[in-house]
């Protein structure tokens, strides 16, 4: 047996300094300041390996996929499908056939709403969402409710920004067909107890759709352990390009769903009289896909897994805690969302200064944050604020970045004194 002096659970901490060098954009100066990028929850920056993989694809083997027998097409197809296999491993799906490439989380949720829910919901059926949801996990359900006569039901959050478990449970009934909830809230950082809520939803026979957009860059995800039926996420928030994302769906459900878009790639045979469709996942991937995006996403996954998402989570949890305590020291700063478990971000308001004014002043010092309602207007209404400032973290951020943010917030208060 190999002897070791290290404790069994020791994990390599992130070497942030080395990581920063992997992000070309961090060499930029903004308004004569070194860039502090605290807006990864909107879209993360890309490491050089992802950028290079896209260039390499276009320079060496670009071609359409699943068509043609020539060498380039074979190479492109194989890279595209390898990315699907990486996605399967990334979320611990049982089969590659459970991974559908989409444009992003929004398209993934619309796919489930239109292809699973729309033909199945009856008037009076219920779709349960939480008060935390991003508009992309709310509006598609409102639309499908309008189309079918189903009813949208909302599980409320408490003053900290946690979904109230009893209230959630009380809203489940035999009428509940779909439960749609975020894994991590984009506005507050709340980590929902997805496994626990899924178990409750399963007791009434509902399917569970999880918006994982804000979870995948920060936490290891295991769809089997969560027990959900669908899990949607975007590439661009996890160091991959924009315009690519994935929907995990349990194969049994995907196989029973009709296509939602028709076209090339998604068919088995076509005549004017009748068309038969390819099996999942191809039946949901009509048209030429985002090949460069899929390849970039595959590389981003390799890169993230090498960093180890448990280490990533620990690093970012430290930043969330540090930012929370530093910001709380500033008189007039009010943290919005103090859920028991949070990931990746802090949301706050500065006195009665509007978030956009805070955002502009921080930008003047090279600090990029998101200021606004974060496509979560019901959450803003809950906390009775029009907008918040959101600082969100990635692997390349460190405590110095938080210190710059804190100094910037103090400057805001100076200007508005």
């Amino acid at each position, binding site marked *: 047996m190999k002897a070791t002096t290290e404790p069994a659970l020791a994990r390599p901490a992130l070497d942030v300094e080395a990581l920063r060098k992997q992000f070309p954009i961090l060499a930029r100066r903004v308004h*004569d300041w070194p860039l502090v990028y605290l807006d990864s929850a909107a879209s993360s920056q890309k490491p050089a390996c992802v950028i290079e993989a896209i260039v390499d694809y276009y320079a060496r083997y670009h071609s359409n996929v699943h068509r043609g027998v020539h060498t380039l097409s074979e190479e492109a197809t194989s890279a595209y499908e390898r990315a699907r296999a990486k996605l399967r491993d990334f979320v611990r799906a049982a089969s590659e056939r459970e991974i559908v490439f989409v444009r992003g989380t929004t398209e993934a949720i619309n796919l489930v709403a239109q292809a699973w829910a729309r033909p199945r919901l009856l008037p009076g059926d219920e779709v349960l969402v939480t008060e935390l949801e991003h508009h992309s996990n709310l509006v598609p359900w409102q639309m499908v409710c309008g189309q079918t006569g189903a009813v949208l039901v909302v599980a409320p959050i408490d003053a900290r920004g946690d979904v109230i478990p009893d209230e959630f449970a009380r809203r489940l009934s035999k009428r509940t067909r779909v439960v749609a909830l975020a894994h991590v809230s984009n506005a507050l950082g709340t980590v929902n107890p997805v496994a626990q809520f899924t178990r409750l939803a399963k007791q009434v026979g509902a399917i569970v759709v999880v918006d994982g957009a804000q979870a995948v860059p920060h936490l290891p995800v295991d769809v089997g352990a969560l027990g959900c039926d669908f899990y949607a996420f975007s590439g661009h928030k996890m160091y991959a390009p924009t315009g690519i994302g994935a929907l995990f769906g349990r194969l049994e459900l995907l196989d029973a769903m009709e296509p939602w878009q028709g076209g090339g790639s998604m068919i088995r045979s076509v005549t004017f009289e009748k068309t038969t469709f390819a099996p999942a996942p191809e039946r949901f991937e009509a048209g030429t896909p985002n090949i460069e995006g899929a390849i970039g996403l595959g590389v981003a996954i390799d890169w993230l897994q090498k960093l180890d998402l448990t280490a990533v989570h620990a690093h970012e949890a430290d930043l969330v805690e540090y930012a929370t305590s530093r910001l709380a020291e500033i008189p007039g700063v009010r943290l919005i969302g103090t859920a028991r478990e949070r990931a990746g971000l802090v949301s706050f308001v500065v006195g009665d*200064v*509007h978030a*956009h*004014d805070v955002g502009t002043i921080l930008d*003047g010092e090279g600090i990029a944050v998101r200021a606004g*309602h974060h496509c979560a207007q019901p959450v803003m209404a809950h906390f009775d604020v*029009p907008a918040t400032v959101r600082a969100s973290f990635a692997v390349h951020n460190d405590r110095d970045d938080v210190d710059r943010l804190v100094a910037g917030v103090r400057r805001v208060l100076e*200007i508005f004194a």
Partner: protein
Amino acid sequence: MSDLRDLYQEVILDHTKRPRNFGMLEHATHRAQGHNPLCGDQLALFVEIADGRLRDVRFAGKGCAISTASASLLTEALKGKTTEEAHSLFAAFHRVVTTPSDEPVDVSGIGKLAVLAGVREFPMRVKCASLAWHTLEAALAGRADPVTTE
């Protein structure tokens, strides 16, 4: 970048903290709602017109420093003006705030509103400065639909 003080000048901060002509106008002959969906700014503008002149102008709502100050300055600038003067002041103001920051701009025709010229350096914020004015145009035109900056 130009100093943030170009944007957040004392006059602007003063109008933000103590907006003038703030509140409903009971006898408004014209009114309109403005909304910036990007930041959630909501604005209601009330105008009382008699004999072709804006006898009173008031506003209500909440928004960022720039949109609040712009609305407040607007109410001061327009009181007593004819509707034609109001339209041409809007045109002159709009020209100033939408002229790219690397081009020269003449602010002589817009009086005190010139303090908002600094917004040119911040293209993302031009909508904040313009919201009250677009809402005014809607009020004068008698449009019922809320104005939006998007």
